[in-house]
């Protein structure tokens, strides 16, 4: 019973969070790959997956950062902008790739917010892009 009340409280609490206005949402994930940062960066720069749906905003070779905007989104989110940065890992042959996305939910008007157009749905959808995206990237990098 206590567990149930706790779960219910958590649920109500999180619902109140998602009820607020069009606040930019953030998803940030990292993955460690067994490849030197310079090499990882070169591959990421022309990672073909991006080029199909993304408009590259900027490259920064010095800090190994790529910024891009998603031009068309079929997912339950909008105004998607993100950047990927390559950092040094624990040793010379290891890098940490960090992916950060900023976006909004699709529904931007008065509550009630229609189901599937809220902040939680948007965050979940972007996580589904970022996490497997990083895993694919790791695989591509380490198999080269």
């Amino acid at each position, binding site marked *: 019973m206590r567990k149930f009340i706790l779960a219910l409280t958590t649920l109500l609490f999180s619902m*109140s*969070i998602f*009820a*607020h*206005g*069009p*606040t*930019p949402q*953030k998803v940030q994930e990292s993955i460690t790959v067994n490849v030197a940062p310079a090499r990882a960066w070169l591959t990421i720069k022309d990672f073909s997956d991006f080029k199909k749906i993304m408009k590259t*905003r*900027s490259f920064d070779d010095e800090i190994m950062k790529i*910024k891009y*905007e998603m031009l068309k989104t079929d997912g339950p989110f909008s105004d998607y*902008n993100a*950047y990927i940065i390559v950092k040094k890992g624990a040793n010379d042959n290891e890098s940490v790739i960090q992916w*950060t996305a*900023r976006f909004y939910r699709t529904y*931007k*008007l*008065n*509550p009630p917010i229609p189901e599937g157009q809220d902040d939680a749905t948007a965050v979940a959808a972007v996580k589904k892009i970022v996490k497997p995206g990083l895993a694919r990237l790791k695989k591509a990098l380490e198999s080269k």
Partner: protein
Amino acid sequence: MINQNKKFILIILTTIFLSLIYLYSNYYKVNPKAYITNQGDDNVSVVDLVSLKVIQTIKVGIAPLGITILNKKNLAFIGNVGTDDISVIDTRTDQIIKTIKLNTAPLSLTSSPDESKVYITDWFKNNVLVISVEEMKVIDSFKVGKTPSGIAFNKEYNYLIVTNRDSNSIEIYNKNKKLIKKLATGKHPFGVYTKGKYAYTANVYDDTVSVISLEDWSTKVIKVGAHPYNILTHQNLGLVTNTVDDSLSVIDLKIDKEIKQIKTGETPENLDIHQKLNLLVVTNWGSDSISVYSLKNLTLIKEIKTGAQSRSFGDFILH
């Protein structure tokens, strides 16, 4: 000889007296501070602008965004869009002294020049709410155009100025809440700033800034970096945060042109200045920090970690 002794004693007494006054006044004086709303952490970082360190973190409502500082009254008003309320902070003690319930999401805040009122844009119901600072409650509200975003008060004309993000316009109200002008801006105007005879809007979708003359209602458009969010002016310069370029556009207002861009942290959103300390402070939503620049030559002095999704939409520096 006696006279000289008297003189000496008098000097000593005066010195002691003056030091006491100095000590006393300093006891109640606080350093200039920046109040940073961390929307992802539900708190406010207080940054001492002399030592450039976070000296306190204040828990507020959920998802704080907008802010306005009342310098004469030593108060900071924080808008929490997650709990639909305002946290009022006493800037002498950095404690919350009042929470004002609104039942709607406060997007941005500004105050009247005499600091008797705080104005809030109500994004969902298209209103401006008026708070009496003395009574610490909402005493009035009036309808404005759709999706009111930024808000600013022009001292010269006594105008309250509001941007309407989704209808690409700016509205100018007089002190009797009467709409006296509605003008087109660039696409998606978010932040608004006003000084002297002008109002300025940052237009997110078309990467421009609109400059509106409050004298003859003429408008002009200046190209800046990608997805500008907010703007302020200092002397003949306009400074604009470009959220997608991670930069500040520097505009020469004499020729209405961007003259350079300066690097910021990730996704810079808002900015404020402290003239005496010669500082410019920018909040970085993406890197959870603020960047502090010299206002004179716009060089970076320090980047300071604050909290998750630092925003501070409004004037956020205590002078």
